[in-house]
């Protein structure tokens, strides 16, 4: 069985929408990252990673979640397909929740979605100062989730 895979999603050109990618990027360079974990910093289309997900014991997806609570808060969804909005209002791709549901039709996939709360996404190629200030805490929480997820 291949090791746990972490996939960071988001668009780095759209401010805090890219937070999943940003966290994955920093996680990959973090010395605390468990050796048996692989990290990919992706774009917006989770379906592209179908091949990488095959044969994994578990996959963790990091993504921005539109949330009225504090930006940077962590929300963990063990059954993302059921818990996240699955309406089809995109013209170009599917949401992470929808993608996980579809991939579960093709492979035994245990996926955890770690949502990072964002309150807005602007047209800028960096995180907002508020989100940037919360990155150390976000990284700590994600690493903690990784330890829990690995032990499940």
């Amino acid at each position: 069985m291949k090791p746990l895979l972490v996939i960071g999603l988001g668009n780095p050109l759209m401010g805090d929408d890219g937070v999943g990618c940003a966290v994955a990027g920093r996680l990959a360079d973090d010395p605390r990252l468990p050796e048996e974990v692989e990290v990919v910093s992706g774009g917006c289309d989770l379906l592209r990673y179908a091949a990488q997900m095959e044969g994994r014991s578990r996959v963790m997806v990091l993504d921005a979640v539109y949330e009225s609570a504090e930006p940077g808060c962590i929300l963990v969804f063990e059954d993302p397909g059921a818990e996240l909005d699955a309406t089809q209002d995109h013209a170009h791709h599917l949401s992470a929740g929808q993608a996980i549901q579809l991939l579960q039709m093709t492979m035994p996939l245990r996926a955890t979605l770690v949502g990072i709360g964002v309150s807005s996404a602007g047209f800028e190629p960096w995180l907002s100062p508020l989100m940037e200030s919360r990155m150390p805490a976000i990284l700590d929480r994600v690493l903690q989730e990784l330890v829990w997820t690995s032990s499940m």
Partner: protein
Amino acid sequence: MKTIVVEHLARVEGHGGITVELEGDAVSDVRFDVFEGARLLEPLVRGKRYDEVSPAMSRICSICSVAHSLTSLKATENAFGVRISPQTELLRELLYRGESIESHALHLFLLALPDYLNYPSATALAADKPDIVLLGLRLKKLGNRIQETIGGRAIHPVNVVPGGFGKVPAVDQLLELRSALIEGMKDSDTVVDLMASLPAAEFCRGNTVYAALLSPNLDSYYAGDEVMIASNGDRSIIRAAEYRELTNEQSVPHSHARHSTFRGKPFMVGSLARITVKPRRPTGRLVVVRERLQLQAPVGNPMDNNKAQALELVRDMERALETIEQLLREGVKDERPVGVHPRAGTGTAITEAPRGLLIHSYTYDAEGRITSADVITPTALNAASMEMHFRRAVEQCAERDDAVLSKRLQMIARAYDPCISCSVHLVRRR
């Protein structure tokens, strides 16, 4: 006055929607707001070295990252007078085919088909008709596999560099791809049967101007430096360097994307434009496919773009297989990228992204640092044409029921396969 609003074609706050205003039965205004991530990158690449530009540009879109990477490289190479090898051109074309297969499979099976079959989403469609969704996922995976093998990564390719490829794929890898394509082509008939069986969706008719890349063998996505524009039997050709004669961009107050018109008329780019503009006679299996899909004569129905994508999906698998056969037959050479010697100048490249013409134009200084960049995406090129078709669809619809009109507008928008929502993709809790 009555207003029809279709929101949330994209998750950009306040952007990406369609608004149609009616005075009685007459359409008084149509507005389609597109957010353009490409425009954001233009100032950000200024001052970058020539070898840093393509990786940055690939970030414009995660669905079309190959298109942006390759068009960017082509523009840079044109600026410096670099001539790539025939093998590099074949491999880039193959990589492009992979993206097209992946993109068309995603669009047709997971985004467009739920509309036709009256499902609110791909997941709802999957619950009732899993075979359709599984077919789409299988084809998407095939396209991804080509991109990963040739581009070195599932997304935002790292193996494409100025002058060639970082690493040429091994024969074993090409043989594996060949087997995967032969297996994938077994799905061709199912794709065509499915698309031919869809309920009719002819929401508007009328003269439409089409524009597509005029490539040497008439169906390349990558090679070629001229654009052909077909309008009601008339054909015009514009060289890549003179692309502004095609685009004639103008800002509009309601959209981030500037609108393009050719001789005062909106024009459509994408699959339907490609098969309409290029007078290449279909051969072999494609004759039957085209007949089955009833794509013989364009009638100005933008919904036919979906059928044209299905035709291309089948053709892309065939062409990808042919390209691999050619590479294997001629022997894969372990080539290094050709030398790149920066010089001051401008280079423009036009290619065919899955959703239509993509233009990158850069000016470099003598040290090979970019001083200006102009990126025009197919969605921006299509924006005026989309508004024209929205208007026609409302004008030609006998019903004035909001739900009917709204669904038609949304289906036309999707048929264009616009790249608007990749700009942001937040998920929301139930």
